[in-house]
């Protein structure tokens, strides 16, 4: 019975992991070897990677991506926490209406807002700037929702005690409450960071200047544009470069994730 369970889990795990393994080994294979569905590289070579770096400014794009993703994630956390706190803990007129409006925006597919957003960027003169990559993403309704739920679950007395100790609202949010909802903060961080890192469509629309391009945009242009010379290995190598940072971030947070779950858990 136990054996069967392990076998099933192993099968599932393998089916998830195999494409990644193939991707990496394919990126290290010579162009002729890619066709085979193997685990190990055929005709081991790193020429695919050197080609990528020769053809496109991937280093610059990596820094752009990092900058955009970090700044935006930071802003999403700060603004999301503030809005979520207000919606969960402050009493003011129209609070519920605002909340429902925010929820409503979540139901809109992004295609609907794509064109209006683009026009806004043009009017603001933000095309080809970092503003176009950052500003439209800093208010994240999912982050607001998650923060609101997390703040609502904390006891009011915690806030009362902080007020008596002399905290203002900002200090209450960031110094008293946030440290007690670390799992939520990590969830939002990971979701936002990954979403931003992988975003290719929006940069393709608002950025034409190569020095402002992000990695997914660059890789996409590289793969579907002519510069890869239709070489599959080179494209895959670019994709690996794109996925690598995410993998690192995820592995890093994974540890924190499990630890914070274990310590905040069900105790009292």
């Amino acid at each position, binding site marked *: 019975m136990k054996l069967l369970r392990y076998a099933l889990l192993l099968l599932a795990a393998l089916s998830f992991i195999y494409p990644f393994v193939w991707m990496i080994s394919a990126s290290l294979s010579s162009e002729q070897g890619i066709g085979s569905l193997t685990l190990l590289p055929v005709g081991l070579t790193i020429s695919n990677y050197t080609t990528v770096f020769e053809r496109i400014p991937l280093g610059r794009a990596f820094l752009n991506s990092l900058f955009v993703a970090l700044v935006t994630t930071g802003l999403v956390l700060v603004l999301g926490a503030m809005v979520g706190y207000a919606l969960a803990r402050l*009493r003011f007129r129209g609070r519920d209406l605002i909340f429902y409006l925010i929820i409503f925006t979540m139901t809109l597919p992004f295609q609907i807002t794509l064109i209006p957003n683009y026009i806004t960027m043009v009017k603001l003169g933000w095309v080809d700037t970092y503003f176009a990559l950052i500003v439209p993403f800093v208010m994240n309704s999912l982050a607001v929702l998650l923060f609101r739920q997390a703040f609502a679950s904390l*006891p009011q*007395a*915690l806030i*009362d*005690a*902080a*007020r*008596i*100790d*002399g*905290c203002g609202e900002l*200090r209450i949010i960031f110094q*008293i409450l946030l*440290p*007690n909802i670390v799992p939520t903060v990590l969830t939002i961080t990971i979701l936002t960071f990954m979403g931003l890192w992988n975003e290719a469509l929006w940069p393709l629309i608002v950025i034409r200047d190569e020095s402002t391009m992000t990695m997914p945009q660059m890789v996409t242009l590289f793969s579907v544009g002519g510069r890869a010379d239709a070489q599959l290995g080179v494209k895959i190598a670019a994709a690996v470069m794109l996925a690598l940072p995410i993998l690192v971030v995820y592995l890093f947070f994974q540890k924190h994730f499990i630890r914070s779950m274990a310590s905040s858990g069900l*105790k*009292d």
Partner: protein
Amino acid sequence: MAEVKLVHVAKAYENGPRVIRNATITVQDREFLVLVGPSGCGKSTLLRMIAGLEDITDGDLLIDGKRMNDVPPKDRDIAMVFQNYALYPHMTVYENMAFGLKLAGLPKDDIRQRVSRAAQLLEIDALLDRKPKDMSGGQRQRVAIGRAIVRNPKVFLFDEPLSNLDAKLRVQTRIELQKLHRELNATIIYVTHDQVEAMTLGDRIVVLRDGDVVQQDTPINLYNQPATQFVAGFIGTPPMNFVPGRLSETGPLYFTSTGGQVQIDLSNSQPAARLQAHRGKPVTFGIRAEHLSEQPPAAQSVHEQALAVEAVENMGNETLVYCPIDTGQLIARLPAGYVASFGQPIRLFWNLDKAHFFDAQTGQAI
């Protein structure tokens, strides 16, 4: 010097009814004042208004003669201890106690000194590096009190601080709170729904009901001269015995219970003069368990009646005897030696000098 004055204070949560209607209370300097009342009567609301955590809808709050309605909590020179302790979970005990002082901009040495003095007083010096989740309820409670003490405030506010502790720890902490009050020489306003806590801790007790102050007085006076039937029933264990009935309209002054089982001759009792105005009207007769006895008491007027015995609770130091009557039951507090013989009626002497009468309509004492 810290005197807290509530003048015609009222509170309505937005769009809601008034949960505090008109409270006028003066807390003297260094007084231990207890706010007591059943759940939902507005005790916490009142305390939170004093703390500055809720707006005051109407009326004035004065601390040392200064109007405090619009002063933020941190500038009121108060400290509060919460029912669920409200310690910051991510900070150590030391950080919890030091946090408010740090924000107030005190020098580090000063903070360290204050925290360690409070920790010694409360015997939690060994716990300073722990996080709240690694401590027992009693220890957390001490830290919460410590966090209040280090601020050296004019007024301490306690909101049911003992209700999360087990019975034994509650008694112990109660005694320590008394000691602490003497040592700190501070004004304390203390909320509880437990009348035993109120009686044992308070210099003075304010009884609240449905947002109104029903009576405020010393514990002894509340016990002996309750202003309403509600207070009489709320203060004291077991609660005062009540017998609804009516006073005779003419002839000798008699009280007759609704069913007629209890008939008391009041003609030469102490309360007789006060009762004249209520002749012929419905009143509630009240008598405490200790004023029903097996032996005739040394009193001006005594009523004597034989009653069936339904149940007996032997407490060791005393015995509570439950007697059913037509309008409910009577509880008598008898000496420990009493041996029940069920099926045999017990002859009880009622000390009418200690009896209370309440207007059946308004509940006011007569």
